[in-house]
Structures are given as structure tokens and as C-alpha cells.
């Protein structure tokens, strides 16, 4: 199982690398741009989906966010903070999409992402029930907790500033909030497991 990095408030080793990717992309290096997409593409998607946007709306938010970066990549005041910049931009666009008047197509678009695509059964029935229990528990979490956990998991080396930008909470609140959210998730999951019959006992 790959390790999870807890967010670091201190400068981490990859910070210079992110800043140099931005500098290279600003100079016209497409490979540097693609590396930024690889690194932060999941985070931007997670921010969009955290606002319960449908696939189509989330895709629009992502594209707008990256198009904005294309224009701003040579103008960022703090290149090493491109992660928080992307997270903030995605959040603003997601809120814009949520608040605007109805779209041209006016089709019902309830964005019911939580109901869709539960994981397919894997090796054993027990596995599928455990995953369903976790998914059910996650979907039942407050939007704040879901957003926090997605923001933490969507980037291999999340910075506190990114999570702070996504949630609009101070950096110092992230640790305690994370602990509370995980406790809630664990409790919900345990309950869901019992009702699904997916407990640890053989």
C-alpha cells in the first residue's frame, strides 16, 4: 500500500520543482505544462466534484481553470503556489457554475455523483460490501469533510495552503478538522458495514 503524505506546512522538496515547472511552462515548454497537469489535474477535478457538480459541469470547470492558468502562467506572483492558485480558481468557477441561471439546454442536471458508479464487485463479495460501506459513509459526510478529504487525497504531496484555499479555512484548522472528519467517516463506515453484513468477523 503506498504511503499517504500528510500535508506539510514547511517547504517540501518538491516546491522548487513546481516553481521551475511553472517557469518553464511560462517560457513555452509544453512538457512542463503537461507535468503540471499530471500533478494537479486530479486536484482540480476533485475540487469541482466536491461542489457536487455533474460530470459535464465539472469538466467545464476544469477546462476553464486550466485555460485561465495558461493565460496566467507567465504572470503568477508566486509560482510555487500554483497548487493553491489552481484550487482557488477551480473553487470560484465551481461556485459560479452553481449560482448562474439555468443553462441553454435546461435539462435536469442533478449531478447525482454519489449514486453513480459504485465500485464493481472484486475478488470476493466481502470486498465489494466493504467498499460500498466506505462509499456510503463518505457520501454521507458533510460537504466540508468530503471536500477536505478529497483535497488531501487528490495530490500526492498536498500543501496546507491548497487545502486551505479549497475550503476557505485557516491552515491551522486543517489538522483538527481532518481528525474529526476521519473519526466521523470511521464511525459511519462501521455502521454501514454492520447493516451490509460486511463486518470483519468471518
Amino acid at each position, binding site marked *: *500500500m*503506498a*504511503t*499517504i503524505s500528510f500535508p506539510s506546512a514547511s517547504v517540501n522538496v518538491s516546491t522548487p520543482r513546481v516553481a521551475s515547472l511553472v517557469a518553464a511552462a511560462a517560457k513555452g515548454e*509544453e512538457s512542463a*505544462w*503537461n507535468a503540471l*497537469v*499530471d500533478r494537479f*489535474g*486530479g486536484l*482540480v*477535478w*476533485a475540487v469541482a*466534484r466536491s461542489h457536487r457538480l455533474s*460530470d459535464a459541469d*465539472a*469538466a*467545464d470547470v*476544469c*477546462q*476553464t481553470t*486550466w*485555460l*485561465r*492558468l*495558461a*493565460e*496566467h*502562467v*507567465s*504572470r503568477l506572483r508566486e509560482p510555487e503556489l500554483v497548487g493553491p492558485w489552481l484550487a482557488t480558481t477551480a473553487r470560484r468557477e465551481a*461556485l*459560479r*457554475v452553481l*449560482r*448562474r*441561471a439555468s*443553462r*441553454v*439546454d*435546461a435539462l435536469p442536471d442533478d449531478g447525482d*455523483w454519489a449514486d453513480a*458508479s*459504485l*465500485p464493481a464487485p472484486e475478488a470476493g463479495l466481502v470486498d465489494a460490501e466493504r*467498499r460500498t460501506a*466506505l*462509499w456510503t459513509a*463518505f457520501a454521507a459526510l458533510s460537504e466540508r469533510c468530503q471536500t477536505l*478529504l*478529497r483535497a*488531501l*487525497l*487528490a495530490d500526492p504531496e498536498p500543501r496546507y495552503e491548497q487545502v486551505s484555499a479549497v475550503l476557505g479555512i485557516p491552515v491551522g484548522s486543517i489538522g483538527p478538522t481532518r*481528525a474529526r472528519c*476521519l*473519526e466521523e*467517516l*470511521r464511525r459511519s463506515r462501521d455502521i454501514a458495514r454492520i447493516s451490509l453484513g460486511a463486518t470483519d468477523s468471518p
Partner: protein
Amino acid sequence: MTRNDDAELLAELRDLLEAVDAVPEAVLNAARGSYTWRTIDAELAQLAYDSAVDFDLAGVRSGTAGRLITFETDAVTIELDVEPAQGGYRVVGQLAPPQEAGVAIRHSRGMTPVGADALGRFSAEGIAPGPLGVRCELADGSVVVTDWLTL
């Protein structure tokens, strides 16, 4: 709960999110393709007002049928009035101060050149929902591009 328990739960959740809601490859490809839209040596007009999200001075969100969007640089203001219509959005624009200019509506499917007349007016039809921006080439040859926003 111990830090290990938390790490294990997070790892399980990460695997699950990857399985059910990973970023689609099409979205990543669109992100990669966004790079070709960047302009060099253009002035960037920031979004100053969007009636869909901003409140007017009376504290009430604009009740007009159209959506009003304003971008600004020091030298020029670009106003858009966007209305849903058959086959896409109708965009009616105004440059201030009024001036003739080469205008193009930038959207996810490409660029639609429209041109602003001597009074700085321009319009376009059938604009698809999604990312939207405007590019203006002014009489002195300078180029202004607006920030993108999601229509």
C-alpha cells in the same frame, strides 16, 4: 485513533475515489490542450463583474434576462450581455471607449471572429456552454484577452 489507523483509512478512501471518481482522461487531455490557448504579449483583462454571481449596488442580484459580464484593463472595458437562445448562447458585446477592433469570441470549440464596429459593438450567436473568453485586437495593434469564465 492512531496515526496509522488514519493513514490506513485514508489509503482505503484514496483507492476508492480512484476507482469511482478519478479524473477522466478526456478532462486531462483538455487540460493539456489548454496550453495552446495562451497568448504572448497580450494584455489580460480581468473579470470585474458577473451578474450571475455578483450583487449590484442595491444588494440584489441582477434581474435582467441577460447575464452581464464586464472585463477591464486600464485602457479598455469589454462588456458582454449573454442570453440563452436556440442552438447556444447569444453574446452581444460593447467596447468602451467605443472603437473599431478585431474581436474574437474564444470558446472550447475554437474562436469565432466577429469584429467590433466603429461604435465598439459586436455580437455572436450559437456559442456553446463552457469556457468563454474574448480577444480584441485594437487599432494600434495591441491585443487584449479576457480571463476565461464558465458560461
